[in-house]
């Protein structure tokens, strides 16, 4: 089982040096996790390191395919509020 980085990743490099298994690598359009190497930090850290520093909600999927940092969990902006404001901006 492994974490996965998806397209909303902004390539900020924060996770790469933290990975105890060197499973994360610089790729384009976005960074990737080598599923064969990822250990979910088992035995090394209490929390998965990439998930713990990633600033972008939804950019890392858990082994179950869910957002490891779900919408609102990092910025504190409730998803409904975000949707409302984005709609307002679109309507301008």
């Amino acid at each position, binding site marked *: 089982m492994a974490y996965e980085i998806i397209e909303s990743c902004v*390539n900020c490099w924060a996770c790469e040096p933290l990975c105890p298994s060197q499973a994360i690598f610089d790729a384009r359009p976005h960074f990737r996790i080598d599923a064969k190497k990822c250990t979910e930090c088992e035995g090394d*850290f209490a929390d998965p*390191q990439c998930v713990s520093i990633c600033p972008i909600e939804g950019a890392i999927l858990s082994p179950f395919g869910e957002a490891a940092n779900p919408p609102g969990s990092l*910025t504190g*902006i409730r998803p409904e509020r975000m949707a409302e404001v984005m709609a*307002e901006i679109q309507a301008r």
Partner: protein
Amino acid sequence: MELTVIGQTAGEAAEGGCSSSGCGGSSDQLSHLPEHIRAKVHNHPCYSEEAHHHFARMHVAVAPACNIQCHYCNRKYDCSNESRPGVVSEVLTPDQAVKKVMAVAANIPQMTVLGIAGPGDPLANPERTFETFRQLTEKAPDIKLCVSTNGLTLPDQVEELCKHNIDHVTITINCVDPDVGAKIYPWIFWNNRRIKGRKGAEILIKQQQKGLKMLTERGILVKVNSVMIPGVNDAHLEEVSKVVKANGAFLHNVMPLIAEAEHGTFYGVMGQRGPTHGELQALQDQCAGDMNMMRHCRQCRADAVGMLGEDRGDEFTMDKVENMEIDYESAMQRRAEYHASIEANREAQKQQSGQAFVALSSLQLKKKETRPVLMAVATSGGGVINQHFGHAKEFLVYEASMTDVRFIGYRKVDLYCSGGDSCGDAETTLQKIIRALEGCEAVLCSKIGYEPWEQLETAGIQPNGEHAMEPIEEAVAAVYAEMAGNGQLDEARETAQLQIGA
């Protein structure tokens, strides 16, 4: 009756008896500091208000990673049309950054300073940051190096910083109280965990103050940046100013929050407003009782290039830089000569502005109390009034009073409307400019067209093109003297007479 006229001569100004930056001509903002500090900031545009008229800086965006989240920052930093901290167009490798610095330094002779300021936290990217510094120390020895940080990992990196000949560090400190911090920082990354809320803020605050003390003990100059967030930390920043001063910071830069919904930041999306010009100035003045305040910060991008008011980043994108042929040795020679001529010019201006203050003091012999006046100035650099009204993208604001002329801040007139919800769609550019200049009673520029002249006058802002190419402070003092002479500033006449009677 004897009034101290600060700035009368260069020598007197340097010994001015006032210990706060709120007092003293703006060119003497740092005049009470020890000589070794003044020498260090003398040609640093971000640390010396006077130097920013003459010298240029650049930031290289080599540091994308961050270890905290701030509510005024959106980590999707890849925007091209905005100018604010944390935003860049391309992240560079250290090698690319060094190439870019050499190219810019060869082409912009005013350049004195290279800073690393993001778009994340430079010290959360230690390898990239220090590799850039290491190469530049060797290849561009005449460029000053500086770095900005949120301070979280600062204590662990002070030793390394000292190795790289960095004598300026900026720490962004928005609070010294974790309860305030919890409203600004949703999380930090610390000891391999994400720590949310008050607990995270508490660790960050401790690290910041510890790092600040360690740097000062090693003789590194520290400036503190604080973002003023109305209703969150505005009432708290005076305390912050006192604490950071006690811990060794030599300069405090209180900046207005930039928050627009389209930036996608927490504050932007939640509708948190930024401070008005008046609120910012009032807070800066309050802090100035204890601390040197910086008021000329332009809150530039993490890849800004050029003089503070301008961004020439577009001229130095990596694809352009790759094709530039740089003879750095001869560029360095040219730059040294250019800097020498700037210095000669600054010295001459100091002499001249001394005369202006004498003129101002002779005005006071009339023993008339006159109120202070704000004036806007259009300048493209060099410390003189040399810009056409219509070409100004920003105006510098000065306050003239009976005792001195001091720099207050700047007003941007192109990118953002400053008023938030009061910003109407049908507003013309000129109306927007007039609103941005709110509180100013005169605008000094090299030239101005008939139409804006009329509208400015109607709005109570007197346009003035009579001081083109004159040093700013001298011109402001002259206009003030003229206004006083015309009896425009007599509001407080009665009190003045009372004082004279006593």
